[in-house]
């Protein structure tokens, strides 16, 4: 009997040890019944599997560890009946539907949930949570499932509460640029909606076609425009969330300023669904920039990259809308795996992409020219090109935006998302490359230059848990030594929960735990995520 190891390595081996749907759902045979599957050996399998279902062998980021199922209740026929009555045709137990809802985008984490709920109103969410709270059933709130740390999928048999059907735009105030919408709205559709009205959503992510605003807020997502618009913490004006016991917390407001009491919405933002289920959001949308240009620059070294950032900040000022960097290994992969011909000839150790906006469509040549002259004359930039029209800007952005896609095609990928002071951002990439040279296929560094947020990616020809463990020790150790964050944007989810100690003190973690226990005493909201297990 093949233990259900949740590691990428096994997923990659799935062709040799195929897990058929029947095999997967045999595991749903939990003690005391529940689960629907067709297997003649039902009773026998249940008895065999009982012990196996209380613990999962899980390869999380910090070493291989076993997650033990906490003593939540299990789904009974009465629960299923309750949900089906509350949500007609929207309480789904179909194995096909659940097979996809149980797996995250990177296919690193696969849950064992038996039921997917699709509420349409906050009242329904409240009743679901109230029921689960009374019964002691664990739930996993689910958005677009695009998270990279396995936060949006269940680990055991948690009830999945999907926000997909709560996808309505409630209101838009043209005058102030305030958008009021439900948590299940897909980011890209919100972007299109507000762009028609001369506004932009204050963040931009690669996953915009699938991610939902509720998840984006719950994970405090960052993205390409962080440097211009800042964190969601200042752009989310209000929200509505359902707490663990079903109580609806209404903090919806369109006010820019409100210093009356503790700012509770900040608890929800970034807590990854462990303190409440976000159901509606009020978002401040800045005016849409009309003239957008993009410069693609080849730099002579990392000091050149830093100097370009300085020049961009001082010369471009409020015209700077994004600044990203990547090394030539990334550029090489984009060229090799995606067939994109480099926009400038010649190879440079680093590339910087600078996006500039104007408040009117007339090209502001003066400031931009001064910026280029400075970086070229001082030798920081050896060559580059600039796109000034929307079509070309989009094409040029692809060289940076499609890097993750290119890396995925290079082999088995291990991703790190760290934040340190900008001037030492690339040191860890060089150090890792040198230290692990013979064991790694490619070490790649790219990221949000202006925020000090490095995406360090490692590609291997074959998965290697020992190497992964060694890399963690090295990279997280380095980050902790430099007082950096081991997860700048991606959050902790289940895969990085045990790395929290590298960036937060045990006192801080203890206080987080007390807060969680106060708000969710039964621990039913997205268990096994964010905070490390207490064992």
């Amino acid at each position, binding site marked *: 009997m093949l233990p259900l190891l949740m590691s990428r390595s096994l997923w990659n081996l799935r062709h040799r040890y195929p897990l058929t749907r029947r095999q997967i759902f045999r595991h749903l045979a939990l003690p005391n019944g529940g689960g629907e599957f067709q297997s003649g050996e039902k009773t026998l399998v249940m008895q065999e599997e009982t012990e196996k279902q209380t613990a999962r062998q899980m390869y999380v980021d910090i070493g291989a560890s076993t997650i033990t199922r906490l003593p939540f209740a299990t789904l009974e026929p009465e629960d299923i009946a309750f949900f089906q009555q509350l949500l007609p045709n929207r309480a789904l137990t179909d194995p096909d539907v659940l097979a996809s809802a149980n797996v995250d985008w990177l296919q690193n984490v696969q849950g064992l949930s038996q039921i997917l709920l699709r509420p349409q109103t906050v009242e329904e969410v409240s009743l679901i949570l109230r029921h689960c709270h009374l019964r002691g059933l664990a739930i996993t709130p689910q958005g677009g499932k695009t998270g990279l740390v396995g936060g949006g999928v269940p680990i055991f048999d948690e009830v999945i509460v999907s926000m997909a059907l709560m996808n309505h735009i409630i209101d838009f105030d043209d005058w102030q640029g305030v958008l009021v919408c439900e948590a299940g709205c897909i980011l890209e559709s919100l972007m299109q909606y507000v762009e028609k009205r001369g506004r932009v959503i204050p963040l931009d992510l690669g996953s915009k076609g699938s991610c939902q605003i509720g998840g984006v807020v719950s994970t405090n997502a960052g993205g390409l425009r962080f440097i211009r618009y800042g964190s969601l913490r200042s752009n989310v004006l209000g929200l509505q969330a359902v707490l663990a016991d079903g109580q609806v917390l209404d903090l919806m407001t369109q006010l820019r300023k409100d210093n009356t009491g503790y700012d509770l919405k900040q608890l929800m933002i970034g807590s990854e669904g462990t303190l409440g289920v976000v159901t509606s959001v009020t978002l401040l949308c800045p005016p849409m920039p009309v003239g957008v240009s993009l410069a693609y620059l080849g730099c002579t070294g990392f000091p050149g990259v830093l100097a370009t950032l300085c020049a961009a900040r001082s010369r471009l000022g409020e015209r700077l809308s994004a600044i990203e960097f990547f090394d030539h290994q990334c550029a090489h992969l984009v060229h090799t795996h995606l067939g994109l011909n480099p926009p400038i000839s010649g190879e440079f150790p680093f590339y910087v992409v600078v996006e500039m906006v104007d408040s009117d469509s007339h090209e502001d040549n003066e400031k931009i020219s001064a910026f280029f002259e400075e970086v*070229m004359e001082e030798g920081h930039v050896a060559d580059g090109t600039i796109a000034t029209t929307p079509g070309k800007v989009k094409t040029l952005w692809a060289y940076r935006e499609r890097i993750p896609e290119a890396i995925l095609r290079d082999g088995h990928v291990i991703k790190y998302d760290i934040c340190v002071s900008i001037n030492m951002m690339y040191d860890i990439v060089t150090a890792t490359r040198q230290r692990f040279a013979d064991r790694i296929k490619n070490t790649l560094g790219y990221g949000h230059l202006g925020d000090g947020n490095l995406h360090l990616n490692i590609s291997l020809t074959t998965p290697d848990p020992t190497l992964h463990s060694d890399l963690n020790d090295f990279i997280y150790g380095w980050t902790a030594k430099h007082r950096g964050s081991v997860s700048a944007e991606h959050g902790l989810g289940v895969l990085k929960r045990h790395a929290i100690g590298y960036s937060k003190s045990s006192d801080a973690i203890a206080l987080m735990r007390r807060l969680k226990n106060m708000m969710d005493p039964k621990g039913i909201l997205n268990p096994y995520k964010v905070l490390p297990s207490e064992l």
Partner: protein
Amino acid sequence: MAFRVLVGVKRVIDYAVKVRVKPDKSGVVTDGVKHSMNPFCEIALEEAVRLKEKSLASEVIAVSCGPQQCQEVIRTALAIGADRGIHVEVPANDELGPLQVSKVFAALVKKEDVGLVLLGKQAIDDDCNQTGQMIAGLLDWSQGTFVSEMTVEGETLKVVREVDGGLETVRLKLPSVITADLRLNEPRYATLPNIMKAKKKRLDVLKIKDLGVELSPRFQVLSIDEPPQREAGVTVESTADLVKKLKEIGKI
């Protein structure tokens, strides 16, 4: 024998912009809208610059007809590799169609002793696909249109044309007019050093009257409308409902 190349570059609304019709239906909104070089003109320009790099062309001249803003497009052409530019100034409100433009080009060809005219096959704003053909007619030159491959062989040009039936290979005697199709080449990006050098390249401004071309309009635009809005589909619950709906709208 290296020849001089004249490249036409047209300033059009950028292809990525959502075009809106003016409320009075007299045209589309152009104020405050991002314009750029017509994509097919970029391809033609790229081909001209490559000829220069192979020393088959002695000089590449970029030409644009229209109001003051056309000079931005000519500057871009200079940044990509054209040697000098000519802006034929035409006030924004004046009628400027393929016939007038082709007369301008014919006049310039004679004035500048040009051996090859390279244009895009059509402009993405009017989709006329007429200018190249008319220039060839006025000058009585050979023409290769919808060209996806071009080779200079002595005093002739061998071109492959993309036509409805497939690919047609034709040999043309120089001098010639060529209009470029999509697959002729992949245009380069203008490098920063070249963008800065382009500011110093020569750009002459001529009045259309100086070339002896009359601008009398040949046709009048009656109205411009948006295409009909696509209506949302209707979801039905079952096949019976589907049949009922189809009968309601008279399809069956």
